[in-house]
């Protein structure tokens, strides 16, 4: 199945909005456990991640550890984001890993789990990721670029126990987040 054709309706369960945990919660610092994509609890979690991402302004991705669950699963949706080029709509990946990463570029990132800071992080702008879809467990390969590549690397980092602040370019690459009311 092409990731582009997937939608959260495939999950067959209603997503619930979950509270997002913030650093320094230890769940954000531990590598996540691999999951069985067919496990009903994984399907529910996938639906919850999408539901929580949808109601969070500006949120383009959410990893399970951000809702307090140390499982290797995350959702992404960069549709219509001005920095995105290639996009695959809404999708959830289990046990995802980076297969190929090239052409690093610096960009500003924020995170719902570090809500008061942003930072400049170098990430590959050409990226190939392999993972499994929740439910069928189908192996999929996502080839992407630009902002979707950045979002995927940010979420895979979460699953490995890393935050964007672990990747910032230097001492002057961390900024207080501006809030516009």
């Amino acid at each position: 199945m092409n990731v582009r054709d997937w939608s959260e309706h495939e999950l067959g369960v209603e997503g619930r909005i979950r509270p997002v945990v913030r650093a320094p919660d230890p769940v954000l610092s531990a590598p996540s456990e691999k999951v069985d994509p067919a496990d009903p609890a994984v399907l529910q979690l996938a639906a919850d991640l999408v539901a929580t991402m949808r109601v969070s302004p500006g949120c383009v991705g959410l990893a399970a550890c951000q809702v307090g669950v140390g499982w290797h699963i995350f959702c992404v949706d960069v549709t219509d984001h001005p920095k995105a080029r290639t996009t695959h709509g809404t999708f959830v990946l289990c046990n995802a890993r980076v297969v190929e990463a090239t052409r690093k570029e610096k960009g500003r990132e924020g995170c719902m789990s570090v809500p008061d800071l942003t930072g400049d992080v170098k990430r590959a702008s050409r990226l190939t990721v392999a993972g499994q879809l929740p439910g069928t467990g189908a192996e999929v390969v996502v080839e992407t670029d630009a902002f979707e590549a950045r979002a995927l690397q940010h979420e895979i980092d979460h699953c490995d126990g890393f935050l964007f602040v672990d990747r910032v370019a230097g001492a002057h690459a961390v900024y207080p987040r501006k809030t516009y009311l």
Partner: protein
Amino acid sequence: MFNRYVSLIAITVIGHDRPGIIAEATGALAELGVNIEDSTMTRLRGHFAMMLVCAGDVSAAAAEKALAGLTADGTLQVTAREVATEELATPAGRPYVLTVHGGDRPGIVSAVTSAVAADGGNITDLTTRLTGQLYLVVAEVDVPASADEADLTSRLDEVARELGVDVTFRPQEADVL
């Protein structure tokens, strides 16, 4: 352009933030003919903080007097001191970025920087931020050729375990375009 006796003056301005602090401070220095060389200016926990190293044909006392207007309402503190001219440091080792984050507690910066210093690592830039319960340190470190990166990394990991914080230590990527 500079001639005669040029002294180097280290100036600090810190206090309540408001629009116009930089314009006033640098205006007073420009009138004295003092040239701002290296500086950093930022907000620290809501205070505005300026650190400047300036060159000019004036004494530190004269510079401080010229900046006295800033202190008039009592919300800003100004110091000016003459400092020696330093040789501009050439990179002495390999550049690394150190990040530390975890729950706020006293002693994080001292424990981590002691581990760096024990191996002769020289911190050239360091920022800390406290937001909510999260304490973050990002430092740029020159690691001397004599230091073993693996040793330093394992020492930092040990400090991180003791403090209950997360530490990363990696080569800094620098692109020259």
